[in-house]
């Protein structure tokens, strides 16, 4: 019987982990410099954290990994974290509410069932949450942070698409639908059904004139939104605050020279979004997204605290980022071969080389010398050290480890730098 990998899971090979850590490193570095602090929440959470209206859509809940824990006789289930934001909001309510503003980030895996098993069911996210601030400036900060990370990953051709959950909700409320129907259609939009709005908008012929232009809205400037505002101001005053919020955001982005595309009907995202929704695309592939979720923390039993956040999809970035473009030249690799009588000296020599910034591997009888820039024989008799340049086929003898290091520095400069 062959050992099998669980369906819908993936292993990350050493090469893939190199990419993973590079992206994670850039993400962490940017977040820390912008004043965000890292958190880590548990893999297991209670299911009820995700079930209320305003958290996850039923379409997403159907794909949650839930089960009864060993003490789950009450019938309440636990889940493998299906989302990164809700646990962070829970953590904030749990222990950080007194702090007011919290700028947090995380690198976490989320679990979403996918029926074919061809896509991975465990996905990695780099997420940032800005809790306790509610201005359009906060949303812009998150957009700019996300874009900076992608820029530092040397990813080009990033497209920013904007939608607005408040605007969608307020429009749906004008369509004469029941609250259940409104939620259902909102959920379908968030789950990516771009036709959802088209299917309902004709049920109220009176709104036929104004709403389609709003819902099919695509544009690239705040002026576009301002015209719309003027058009709607008489018929739909309820939409005003959301349009104003949206205009403020786009004006700020405009001032920062940031390109974007407004596309209201493609508001794919989470049910907890209440304001701007932003999505990051490279070609047709979505590589991240975020939005404002002012109602989530009060809904979960916390204070009335606004928040917004985003996540970048690590698995997708891994296939896009070229490590050569990012990586510093790797440290030189030295294979240390000690004679049986000089094992102790061999280990201390390897330690010394590592301290000096080299990768020093101890010879275990199986490594190929050709995989290394250098080999270093450590002996109990003179000469104590024999250093061989595997690339240029040169041989150096040395009496002390300091001499070895001097040779490495002098002769190894053309092989890449020391880490």
């Amino acid at each position, binding site marked *: 019987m062959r050992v099998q990998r669980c369906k819908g899971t993936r292993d990350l090979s050493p090469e893939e982990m190199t990419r993973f850590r590079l992206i994670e490193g850039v993400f962490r570095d940017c977040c820390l410099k912008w004043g965000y602090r890292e958190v880590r929440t548990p893999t297991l959470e209670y299911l009820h954290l995700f*079930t209320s209206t305003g958290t996850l859509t039923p379409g997403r809940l159907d794909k949650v990994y839930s089960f*009864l824990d*060993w*003490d789950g006789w009450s*019938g*309440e289930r636990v889940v493998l974290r299906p989302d990164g934001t809700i646990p962070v909001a829970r953590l904030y309510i749990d222990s950080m509410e007194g702090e007011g503003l919290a700028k947090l980030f995380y690198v976490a895996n989320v679990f979403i069932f996918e029926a074919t098993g061809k896509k991975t069911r465990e996905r990695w996210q780099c997420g940032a949450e800005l809790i306790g601030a509610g201005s359009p400036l906060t949303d812009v900060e998150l957009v700019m942070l996300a874009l900076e990370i992608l820029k530092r990953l040397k990813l080009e051709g990033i497209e920013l698409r904007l939608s607005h959950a408040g605007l969608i909700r307020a429009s749906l409320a004008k369509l004469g639908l029941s609250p259940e129907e409104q*939620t259902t259609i909102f959920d379908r939009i968030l789950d990516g059904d771009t036709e959802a709005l088209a299917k309902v908008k004709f049920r109220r012929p009176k709104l036929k004139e104004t709403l389609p232009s709003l819902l099919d809205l695509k544009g690239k400037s705040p002026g576009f939104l301002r015209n719309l505002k003027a058009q709607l101001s008489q018929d739909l005053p309820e939409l005003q605050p959301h349009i104003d919020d949206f205009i403020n955001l786009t004006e700020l982005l405009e001032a920062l020279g940031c390109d974007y595309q407004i596309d209201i009907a493609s508001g794919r995202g989470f049910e907890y979004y209440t304001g701007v929704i932003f999505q990051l695309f490279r070609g047709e592939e979505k590589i991240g997204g975020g939005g404002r979720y002012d109602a989530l923390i009060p809904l979960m039993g916390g204070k009335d605290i606004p928040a917004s956040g985003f996540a970048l999809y690590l698995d997708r970035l891994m296939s896009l980022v070229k490590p050569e473009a990012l990586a510093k030249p790797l440290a030189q690799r030295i294979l240390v071969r000690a004679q049986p009588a000089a094992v102790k000296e061999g280990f201390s020599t390897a330690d010394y080389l590592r301290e000096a910034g080299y990768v020093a591997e101890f010879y275990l009888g199986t490594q190929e010398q050709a995989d290394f820039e250098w080999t270093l024989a450590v002996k109990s008799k003179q000469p104590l050290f024999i250093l061989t340049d595997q690339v240029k086929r040169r041989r150096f003898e040395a009496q002390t480890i300091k001499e070895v290091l001097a040779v490495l520095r002098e002769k190894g400069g053309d092989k890449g730098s020391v880490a």
Partner: protein
Amino acid sequence: MEIKVALPKGRLLGETAALLRRAGWGLIGYHERARFYHTKSRRFPNLSAKVFHEKDIPIQVAIGNYDLGICGSDWIEELLAKYPSSGLLKEGNLGYGEGALYMAASRSEGAATVEEMRAKPGIVRIASEYPNLAESFALNLRLRRFSIFPLWGAAEVYPPESADLALAFSTAEELLQYGLAPVSKILSVSAFLIANRNSWESKDMGEVMASLQDVLISESVPRKLAKEKYPSSTTAPRMPEIQYLSEEPAEDIVQLALPDGHQQSPTLHLLSKAGIHIDDYPSAAGNRRPTTDLSGVTIKVIRPQDMPLQVANGNFDLAITGRDWLMEHLYQFPSSPVTELLDLKLGKVKIVAVVSKDLSVADVHGLRQLNAERAVPLRVASEYINIADKYARDNHLGLYRVVPTWGASEAFLPEDADLLIENTQTGRTIARHNLKIIDTLFASTAWLIGSSNRISSSIKRERIKSIIETLRRAVEEL
């Protein structure tokens, strides 16, 4: 190529047998009094059928043990609610065995609506034989917080004390008799023909399907289901309310669970020996709330299988169930507060590991060796899924799968399972089915069980103590 069919016993047996008779299958021995589970067709020599509990049939067809099956759509939807991508195809509505699944609440609490359930503070408890459907109902309704109590049966007796909602197969009229009112109709049920997806794609079942198609077409069953009507809770005639002991505070009243089924007469015998009188137990009319002369005690009759979980949740203080079902519960929830109070020494059975007589294995070590040489998982069938799982784990049976069954597990060997974890009194049924016992896990008798959680009411504590003592004396006399 052999075609295997899973046929229902119980509720759907009569009409299914009649349908297949009209289809000319010539099934041998598929009738109410059949003692064996296997049957052959006189018309289709390559067709063999086996009789199952209805609930087992979608699972057996989905995993490919059977190519075709007939069962109620309730059990199909229950499976698909959790496993939408399973290899199960619905081939057609057979137009009989009709009924409905209702989500219902107690009428004594006033009429409940979906909106009230959603607005309810705290946890909404739903009791059901259909836990997967109950969970999707709760998720789709966006209930903020809920608990599902999976049941073996008698869901209708749970509201209002032991659950807020019951999801049960019923009619609106029956619900009224139980003192319940429908909150929502979940599903219209009727008998369906189902097929395994792989079999459907790879096997020639044309003749068999044609025989059924003929029957259905010639009878031209109207496929459109009549729009179900059920009395809304406001217009329904008021039924006499269930009487609760209202003169006493609820926290002082002892909730006692008594078993239904074949445990009833030995339980009744013991109780009368103890001088405890119970009215209408066992009940010919199906009353599940008998009364007693014990003061401050309320009784409900439920399935013994469901008792440990109910005691763990504080819905009952005392219950009479088998030790087997207590162990089943504790293996799933090791830190559960349920505890053994008194061995009633009734209904002794052994829990045993059983294989086919044709298997050259004498004990579990032999089975382990045999399984190590096989490339396919060992199929372990049992009503006791947690006991079976633990047994397979503890004995390092390697690659195995537990197949849940709902009774008559001995029918699963040898074709549909390799190992059975089963209870037996005499071993005669096992021998009759050409099976053998290779291991005994433990012995089980009826026990009085309770909770180790502290009871705040001293009156209730005294009452429980007194019942235990009364029963202890009766057991010693027996």
